């Protein structure tokens, strides 16, 4: 006697199809650390975008108000005032604009340039690969902060040059990451298939290869943003980045340093803000790494 075996055919119902990005977001949302980090970053972004509405730049951030100088945090000035009587909170909020601007623009620069170079190196291989990798070897053998200082020393201290300096300094890192990712997918079947139907190199790189090696690039972007924020503050702290009276966080730290003995909040609060921002980006980066590639967990 034959047994009747019922085969379930509606697999789709039991295992609903979810897209790669949906699944990633689902996994990311389960990671508490990255959600906290993301929340802080969104708060920072909103504050920096509405900085002009919250605090008038010329009146509160730049104009000196000696009668209210060096006041400890109070209800009127929640983070106190600096040596020129300016509200530290207002300066921090406006300063976040500079940090975020420098971080996003320099990382965008290095993603585009480094990504293109890395994709070329990985895809074409041979002489091109060799040349590009030797150049990245040279760039990577100069410590990043130092390289940025050299560029700023040559071009002069300004926000634009700082973006350029940090951007160039991160190019080799993205070139390496993208090259590695491209090599890992270069020879798989679907690329061969694309080539067989006559796709050109450009289409293959940008439509087929790059989307499939996004994960390491996205993770690297968050980590490089953190590093750019650190270096912006560090260089400005040394007087080689954004110059006063602009309310850059490193500038705030440098000027607060002279009053560290009696007015320690001027050093502690900006430093704490820098730390929280970097911490948030690092936590988000860690979470993204796990969410994008569950094998790595």
């Amino acid at each position, binding site marked *: 006697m034959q047994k009747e075996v019922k085969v379930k055919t509606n697999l789709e119902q039991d295992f609903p199809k979810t897209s790669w990005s949906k699944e990633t977001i689902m996994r990311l949302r389960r990671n508490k650390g990255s959600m906290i980090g993301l929340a802080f970053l969104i708060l920072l972004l909103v504050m920096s975008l509405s900085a002009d509405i919250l605090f008038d730049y010329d009146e509160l951030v730049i104009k000196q108000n000696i009668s209210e100088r060096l006041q400890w945090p109070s209800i009127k000035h929640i983070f106190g005032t600096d040596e020129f009587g300016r509200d530290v909170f207002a300066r921090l909020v406006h300063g976040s604009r500079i940090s975020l601007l420098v971080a996003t623009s320099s990382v965008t620069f290095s993603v585009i340039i480094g990504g293109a170079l890395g994709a070329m190196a990985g895809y074409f291989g041979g002489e091109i690969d060799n040349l590009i990798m030797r150049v990245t070897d*040279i760039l990577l*053998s100069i410590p990043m*902060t130092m390289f940025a200082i050299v560029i700023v020393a040559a071009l002069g201290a300004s926000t634009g040059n700082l973006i350029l300096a940090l951007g160039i300094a991160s190019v080799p890192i993205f070139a390496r990451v993208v090259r590695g990712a491209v090599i890992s997918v270069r020879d798989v079947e679907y690329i061969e298939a694309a080539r067989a139907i006559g796709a050109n190199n450009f289409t293959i790189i940008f439509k087929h290869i790059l989307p499939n090696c996004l994960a390491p690039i996205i993770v690297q972007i968050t980590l490089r943003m953190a590093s750019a924020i650190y270096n912006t503050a560090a260089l400005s702290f*040394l007087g080689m980045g954004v110059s006063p009276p602009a309310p850059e966080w490193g500038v705030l730290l440098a000027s607060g340093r002279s009053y560290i003995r009696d007015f320690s909040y001027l050093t502690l609060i900006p430093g704490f803000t820098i730390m*929280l921002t970097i*911490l948030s980006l690092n936590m988000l980066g860690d979470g993204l790494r796990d969410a994008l590639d569950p094998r790595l967990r």
Partner: protein
Amino acid sequence: MIKYITKRFINMIPVILGVILLVFVIMELAPGDPVLLILGDNASEEARIAKTAELGLDKPLVIRYLKYVSNFFRGDMGTSYISNRSVSIEVLHRFPNTLKLSLVAATISILMAIPLGITAAVKQNSFFDNISMVVSLIGNSMPAFWLGLVLVLFFSLKLGWFPVQGATAGWKSYVLPSVAIGFMNMAAIARTTRSSMLETIRQDYIRTAKSKGISKNQVIMRHAFVNALIPTITIIGVQLGNLLGGAVITETVFAWPGIGRLMVQSVGSRDVPMILGCVITLSICYSIVNLLVDLLYGFVDPRVRSMYT
């Protein structure tokens, strides 16, 4: 093995030449005439022309680069525009201070991070694990120069235990700067050690070793840790490099008489030969550290060693 090491050292030469070229070209863009910087604005036309010729600035960039390189390999990195002293002597004079501080910081951070990482992994999800991972996450995000300032505030200004700056107070002057730069390293090394230990502990051979009846400590140290070392060494190498690069900022905070501070001062006075000397020296150290780390893989992992021959 010796053949491999020699080959790697020879491979470093083009990288060094490239670094010199790169920094040379970038500094070429620097505004201002070095001759005016040395002689002042009121110098006569003849004196200026004579000085330009003396410095070789009338020659094309390629010639100057080749001359610099040939002098460099003979140990001569030119003369400072400001103090008129030999750059090589000045850099060599400052270098031991940077090296000592980096080594102290590295040693402390490695000695603390590895036991921390192992314990956290062995007691995964325990209270100790959670605390140490939160601390290392924070440590990883704390700007070294800010941590330096905070340490100065509490331990020098409030408690008066350590000097505020300088390197003149013996071992006490090393404490705060090395903690400031070492904390970030410690955090990174501890995190990597933990995650690579966690991966190793789940392997079959660890279960085998346990079921053979080997004591727990021996399983952890002789079977798990040794095999989890490679990622730890990688991150130690990266962190040592960061130490050298971060020297610029930490040395400024603590007025430490090392190369980093020399470089910052030279940037301020636009002393190009001195900047070149500092950047090139630190970059070479950085390359040597990376090379040593690569060689260390061979000592730890017999599979890597077999590839050398």
